[in-house]
């Protein structure tokens, strides 16, 4: 049903789609130019979710964002899940497909969180094998997203940027730069977010994510930021985003808000703020 050639994501603001916003989006989507869905929410057999997605896909470019592939898992990728992704990407022909540098399954259990991996050459090789397999099965290039991290692995011996860049170089995948994750991880790891951005291979970035976080108190009295996707984008994240766009030029940029959902005008205002940066008038 979608036999036209696949369009790229526009280098403007997109919004993470939630069914609660359907009527508002259809009435006035501005300034949203595209939307992103979580792949696993559209793997049911039928009903309203798929009907809504078919309808929206006729009007907006769609980015499919997987949350359950467990690319960082020690085990082999789940063939059934890959087949479901291929089916979804087949009929929907999305403008982009992305997944996380994380694992979420173990021994048949799906743990429903993006769990961290150590930055070692062994992990890197395993992730590369998995990405090669994903790109082969889907017949397209995928984007890999940088994580938000809370823990440090004593066995890690590569910097996160080098770990990601190496994977992209070896597999040909692109990168999804989540600027909120950069900020959250930098605070949690006691590192420099701007230095991370300066080192990041922005030429490989196909999409940017902007989401909200919450401040908590961690071990030994240190600040700990939680990647909650339940709040507005914070000012330090906007500043990092401006630095990214100043260097890379305009990129498809998603406002990500998954929990404690606000009404549509709040998301539209966040998207407008992103649009202003992308248009270089902020």
């Amino acid at each position: 049903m979608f036999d036209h050639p696949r369009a790229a994501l526009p280098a403007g603001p997109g919004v993470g789609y939630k069914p609660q916003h359907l009527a508002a989006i259809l009435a006035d989507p501005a300034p949203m130019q595209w939307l992103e869905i979580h792949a696993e929410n559209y793997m049911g057999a039928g009903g309203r979710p798929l009907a809504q997605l078919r309808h929206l896909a006729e009007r907006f470019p769609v980015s499919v964002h997987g949350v359950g592939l467990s690319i960082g898992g020690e085990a082999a990728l789940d063939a059934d899940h890959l087949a479901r992704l291929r089916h979804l990407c087949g009929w929907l022909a999305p403008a982009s497909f992305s997944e996380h540098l994380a694992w979420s399954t173990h021994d048949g259990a799906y743990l429903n969180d993006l769990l961290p991996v150590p930055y070692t050459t062994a992990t890197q090789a395993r992730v590369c094998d998995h990405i090669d397999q994903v790109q082969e099965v889907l017949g397209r290039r995928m984007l890999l997203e940088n994580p938000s991290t809370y823990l440090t692995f004593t066995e890690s011996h590569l910097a996160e940027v080098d770990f990601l860049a190496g994977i992209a170089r070896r597999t040909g995948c692109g990168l999804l730069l989540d600027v909120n994750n950069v900020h959250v991880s930098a605070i949690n790891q006691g590192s420099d977010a701007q230095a991370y951005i300066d080192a990041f291979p922005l030429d490989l970035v196909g999409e940017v994510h902007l989401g909200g976080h919450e401040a908590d108190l961690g071990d030994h009295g240190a600040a700990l930021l939680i990647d909650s996707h339940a709040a507005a984008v914070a000012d330090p994240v906007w500043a990092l985003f401006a630095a990214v766009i100043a260097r890379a030029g305009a990129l498809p940029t998603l406002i990500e808000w998954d929990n404690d959902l606000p009404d549509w005008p709040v998301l539209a205002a966040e998207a407008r703020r992103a649009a202003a940066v992308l248009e270089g008038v902020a």
Partner: protein
Amino acid sequence: MTQAAFAAALLDPDLAVPDGLTDPQGRAAALRFGVYRNNVVSSLTKVLEAGFPVVRALVGDGFFAAMAGAFLRRHPPTSRILMLYGDEFPAFVQRFPPVSHLGYLPDVARLELALRQSYHAADGVPLSADMLTPDRLLTARLHFAPALRLVTSDWPVWSIWAAHMRGGLMPTAMQGESVVILRPGYDPDPRPLAPACVPVLAALLATEPLESALDHAGEGFDLTDFLALLLGGGAITGLAP
């Protein structure tokens, strides 16, 4: 540090944080590991809260969260498609000692699970009434829409569900009720099903032809009303000889 050790400690708060996970200064990081523990439990609890709102209302928010926590540690999802997570929840509730005095609770959970399954079921193309001539109909096996569900119970599950979701009083008499879930469009439409109709629908769902299914009809069964209910709900999608 293996993912097996990480996963085990995630689901068992009595286990220590696995070796090799620290804060940036190399010190113990129990609170940091706790972020992942909390994410797993709270996100899956939210899925169960959204899927079983009447069970939750019946036992209270705090108790439901504790029961959900016990369930998800024993039965973590086996699929990444969480829209259908909880198919073992009714049986778990049935065996959960603290609610053994609430005999109706597992069947209310079954009804809520069936509603969710109906919502996500494949779309069916319903037959119209004029395709159902009496002579064809009697000898045919009926094909039903994938979204159709029949929930039978020895408890007043319909009245309990309706009291919470549609407003009304909790039933005082504890006689059994059955519910048929139709989905004429995209919204599951649960209806109480008269006891006379239940064995007929059950036989049809077991692919008996209508003629022999009617042998199971209870007293007061009305074929016209029964077919009108199914056709009105878009439940019949085909006839096979």
